[in-house]
């Protein structure tokens, strides 16, 4: 039972993890102090017969202190969160050289489309996979997240990415993985009966391996197109 985050492998990782631990420390200190005081007071001021409690109604000074201190603390936490939040979610923060992807969610699959050699989605050389996403390491990827039916939530725990997919909306999600490997993809929004099966795998490759994967896919890209046509029927 651990309060430590699992390792992160994206450029968002340090920001999110720093904020998490910062809040953990702040709340941890408050937690220990308040709970310790509670226990201490209960023991120290336990019932003594024939004695009265001290008749105190309050203290304006104390009220001001414990209004102002938490106020400053939480506002501080809010303000240090803003830059990271903007970096993660603001569409303007997506690096210009990011690779374009489309992730289309539906009950209960992630359909992932990679733009292919021409770098534009929606063209003939697109590569589509189901539930398995292939990305290069140290390269930003720019995902247009869509949904066909209900809400889903695209969750990459190690990348510290989570974004709901909303039918009728194109939502921009981006991240940059920093280590090659295979990582889970999850659905974090209840999306129907078999919501639980809507998992997948994120394969992060070294640049060369990614090229090889693209090449292997482009070889049978025609077949993939046929398959798409048939699905449409």
């Amino acid at each position, binding site marked *: *039972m651990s*309060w*430590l*985050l*699992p390792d992160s492998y994206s450029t968002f990782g340090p*920001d999110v993890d720093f*904020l*998490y631990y910062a*809040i953990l420390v702040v*709340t941890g200190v*408050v*937690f220990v102090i*308040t*709970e310790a005081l*509670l226990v201490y*007071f*209960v023991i120290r*001021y*336990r019932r003594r017969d024939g004695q*009265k*409690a*001290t*008749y*105190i*109604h*309050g*203290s304006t000074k104390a009220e001001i202190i414990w*209004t102002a201190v*938490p*106020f400053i603390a*939480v506002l501080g936490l*809010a303000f240090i*969160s803003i830059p990271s*939040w*903007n970096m993660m*979610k603001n569409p303007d923060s997506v690096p210009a050289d990011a690779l374009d992807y489309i992730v289309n969610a539906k009950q209960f699959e992630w359909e992932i489309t990679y733009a292919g050699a021409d770098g534009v989605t929606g063209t003939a050389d697109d590569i589509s996979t189901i539930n398995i996403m292939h990305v290069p390491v140290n390269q930003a990827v720019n995902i247009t997240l869509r949904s066909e*039916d*209900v*809400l889903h*939530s695209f*969750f990459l*725990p190690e990348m510290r990415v*989570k*974004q*709901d*997919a909303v*039918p*009728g*909306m194109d939502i921009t999600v981006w991240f940059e993985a920093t280590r090659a490997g295979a990582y*889970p993809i*999850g659905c*974090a*929004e*209840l*999306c*129907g009966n*078999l*919501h*639980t*099966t809507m998992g997948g795998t994120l394969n992060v490759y070294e640049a060369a391996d990614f090229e090889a994967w693209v090449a292997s896919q482009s070889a049978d890209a025609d077949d993939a197109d046929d398959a798409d046509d048939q699905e449409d029927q």
Partner: protein
Amino acid sequence: MDAHAHAHEMPWIRRYIFSTDHKTIAIQFLLMSLFFLVVGGLLAMMMRWQLGFPSEPMPGGMLLPDEMMAPTPAGAIMLPEFYNSLVTMHGTIMIFFAIMPLLVGVFGNLLIPLQIGADDMAFPRLNMASFWMAFPAGLLMLASFAVEGGAAGAGWTSYAPLSASGEYTGVYLGQQLWLISLTILGFASLAGAVNYITTIINMRAPGMTWFRMPLATWALFITAILILLAIPILAGALIMLLFDQTIGTAFFLPASDGEPLLWQHLFWFFGHPEVYILILPAMGITSDVLANGARKPVFGYHAMVLAIVAIAFLSWIVWGHHMFQSGMNPMLGTTFMITTMVIAVPSAIKVFNWLGTIYKGNIHLHTPMLHALGFVSMFIIGGLSGVFMASTPVDVYIHDTYFIVAHLHYVLFGGSLFAIFAGITFWYPKMFGRLMNEKWGRIHFWLTMILYNIVFWPMHSIGIQGHMRRIYDPTQYEFLQPLQPINQFITMAAFALVAVQVIYALNFIISIWKGKKAGNNPWKANSLEWTVPSPPPHGNFELVPIVYRGPYEYSAPDVEEDYWLQDAPPPSETAAPALEPQPVAD
């Protein structure tokens, strides 16, 4: 005319079933919501079975129909559809039919007239109607388990479009019953809220100024205002969703250009005030009990009132923090993050004031006091874990994970439910004339406290490891498989937690007949309900009470005892009271 005598002439059905007496209605709400609390708890146990032992045959599952539990040669295995219904109905029943009626229906009805010195609510028949809408609404909600397609399965938040069309879930009638039931419950809540607000504004006894009201009444007053303003928003949203479901409109269906996010905005615009509806009365009850247990005035009474008002006000501008990852504009996310952080301040003020209240007290650790202290210690955890998700970047990671489940249960179970236990035990004499058993009360408290933490504390941890909420089978995800022993451990502890509640149930039932007779004021408390017999007669007060002071004058140096009833004339006026007690004017 003598109301008191009149009550005894009334036929049985008017006295116990269709009663207009606020105390009887409070007991009706109590029995109803305890029933739903049990139901909600059992639903949670079935969920826990599935989470601890995914797709293993559930004991007793054979008793349930095939649409819920699939019969296999090995035994009955829970279906994902049913699991989703359990998730939905556990949340819905606990929030709308257990915690909310317990806090608002029971304590609102019982305490408001008694604590302000009124003979009853402003609109007693409306009050009766409120219960008789809420109860059938609950039965309708339960009945939805029996209809074709099963009960609603889109979560208690019923996010559209999953909830807006049966084609996504296979649940048609169940979802519609869910919507209708909550709409009826909404009417019941509104009837209650109008009643409470009118009663508190208009029917306070002479001398009961605003700042002489006990904090329980203050909290219920502010809660009633939140209900009054929030429930109609929910009703509007529910009706639109019902139209989408039944007549084919497309408010929330993107296929016809409806807006799924509109549902979320409406729901949480209601939903966040609702969250405080579920905690403010608990805070009020805790304040009353803590002062009584510590034999000391509440520390910073005015600050406590202001904090309640501030929470209520801020609760209207923080709803977006439920929607950080929903696709809402990130700039709005920043705004909501700041308002959300700010709402932590009044909660912190309350915690520090509670600590100030027991500081230098003379603490009597009776059962209600234990539960009140339990509330404070658990609310600290629930409040602090809320700071994590207020920070938007951290929320990206922990949103919709078990961290949220842990957080909300620390607030609703560790918070509200402990306060409810405190409140029921504390005011039990005013309902049934007797005290609950003290020894068994303490045993129950300690077992509950320990087991409760064993159940919910590890949920923070598995949430931090990325365990999503509302998933039917965690082992479907390879990265969650190492967490399965923790899930099993939580499940076992949860069973034990529910089992020890039998102690409370037995204590509650047996004490009705066998409990120690309470007398007027068993806890040596100050507020007006303790000046009348337990249980108070129909009409409550023989003479309209006159209030001389605030409700928390414990250990005042002016009197010998360590408590000072609100209607006790001050020593200087005992000879010639400025105000003559008046007979009740009816």
